[in-house]
């Protein structure tokens, strides 16, 4: 198990969060707190770059759904970039691959 790290930056399209490590029951609250502090403007795109996400459990999925709800409420969009295979498999099982726009990487996700 590895700790969770979150690196944030701003792209032209909106905030980009790089998620590193394990997103699980013990760490999910960190990302949740980070997202709560984030201000999204209408039309922005919130990119979660999961390239270095090692593990994501149901608590992690919950935060992704909360982020989606937050973005929708702000008339913004949540998109996922570079989703690792193991997480993509879970997203497919729970049907979220139909909900979140998925991009190969952040470059693709932030190109306007």
């Amino acid at each position, binding site marked *: 198990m590895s700790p969770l790290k979150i690196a944030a930056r701003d792209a032209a399209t909106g905030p980009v969060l790089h998620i590193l490590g394990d997103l699980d029951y013990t760490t999910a609250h960190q990302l949740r707190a980070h997202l709560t502090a984030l201000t999204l403007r209408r039309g922005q795109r919130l990119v979660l770059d999961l390239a270095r996400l090692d593990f994501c*459990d149901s608590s992690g999925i919950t935060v992704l759904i909360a982020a989606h709800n937050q973005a929708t409420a702000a008339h913004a969009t949540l998109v996922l970039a570079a989703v690792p295979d193991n997480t993509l498999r879970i997203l497919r*099982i729970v*049907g*979220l691959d139909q909900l979140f726009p998925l991009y190969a990487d952040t470059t693709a996700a932030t190109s306007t």
Partner: protein
Amino acid sequence: MCRADEHPEPREAGAGASTDAAFTALLEDSAEELYESAPCGYLSTLMDGTIAKINATLLDWLGLERETVVGRKRFADLLTVGGRLYHETHFAPLLQMQGEISGIALEMKTCGSDRLPVLVSSAVKHSSDGEPLLIRTTVFDASDRRAYEQELLHRKQDADEARRQAEEAREQAEADRSRLQEALAVLQQSLLPASLPAVPGVETAVYYHTASPDRLGGDFYDLFPLDGKRWAFFLGDVCGKGPQAAAVTSLTRYTLRTAALHDPDPVAALTTLNSVLHDRYTGGDPRYCTAIFGVLEPDPANDCVTVRLASGGHPPALVARSDGTAALLPTPGGFLVGALAHAHFASTTTELHPGDTLLLYTDGLTEARTGPDRTSLYGDDALLAFVTDHAGAPPEEMIQALAGLLRGLGDGVDDDTALLALGSPAHTSAHSPATSHLR
């Protein structure tokens, strides 16, 4: 052993004697003065305890006049009641037996009805023919020492009290903890059926693995009759753990039971649950579950059980066939239940023939961490291979095998795991009534 007094050096003897005399003159007026004003009490008594002589120091301590004491009081009269008792039972007999006694702690009465703690030593003076003549006694003021002892005693009592309070707090905490555990266990049991009802023509088996006894798990399952011919079952996993997850589990269980009685269609039941959960938990704290809901319809005439099931974001069920094969029962595109206002649920149908077993499980098993560094997951493929290996086994045996597998994964299983197996019993011949399945 220098016996200087017997063989003094002549030259020095005179000088030494005069020096001693000078010192004595300087320091003490007389032996009498030393006796009376010594920093300890002196007294001499007859053998019956009557005081014959007492020094001024002791009279001063006790606040007594010489004339009221000498010849009138006994030593024991100067003691407190407790001191007198001790004198009577221990001090006097010991002194009589040994001829001397030293350092005995007693208490003496003073004029202000105060007590003076003292240390007493006595010795019997004998005549030349060995007859006891009188008792010489010295008395030391032990107030400071007693105060010190009292202080020690108080500190010890304080420490004992603190220890007792800590112990009490610990016991209380332990009692609270065990009450909480009990409450958690009762709650946990309310989330799961105590036992599964018998379904004619169907064998069932369940297993629930609790990853942590302190955290209420979010896995659930149930099996219950819909009408005379059909039974509904479900198994699922509420996101998260703890009391909040348990509340969702409870809501989920009773919503699905109620929904199934109104409309037993699996997709309808999940859709109802989706609406209930989504309405109840909206916004920044979404609560949802994954679930498979199904309906069993045994068909005794055709010797099979029809299963219709729908999945909401749950890992696909597995079917192990009597011919030794096993396959996933995919329901692609089924959404998490409760996460979105409008969710899509996929359904599928299968038939269980004799010796076939349907297995539902939660991802505690497939997401169990394996490998030396616990970084790999057990995975869907491994589970399919395991079930294939046990294809043909009746539900109970299948569940036992999987329970053994979970135990083998040890603390790699960091989430609760629920297993539910439903099977159509294999035909048994008259010669082997137990089971046709040999392994």
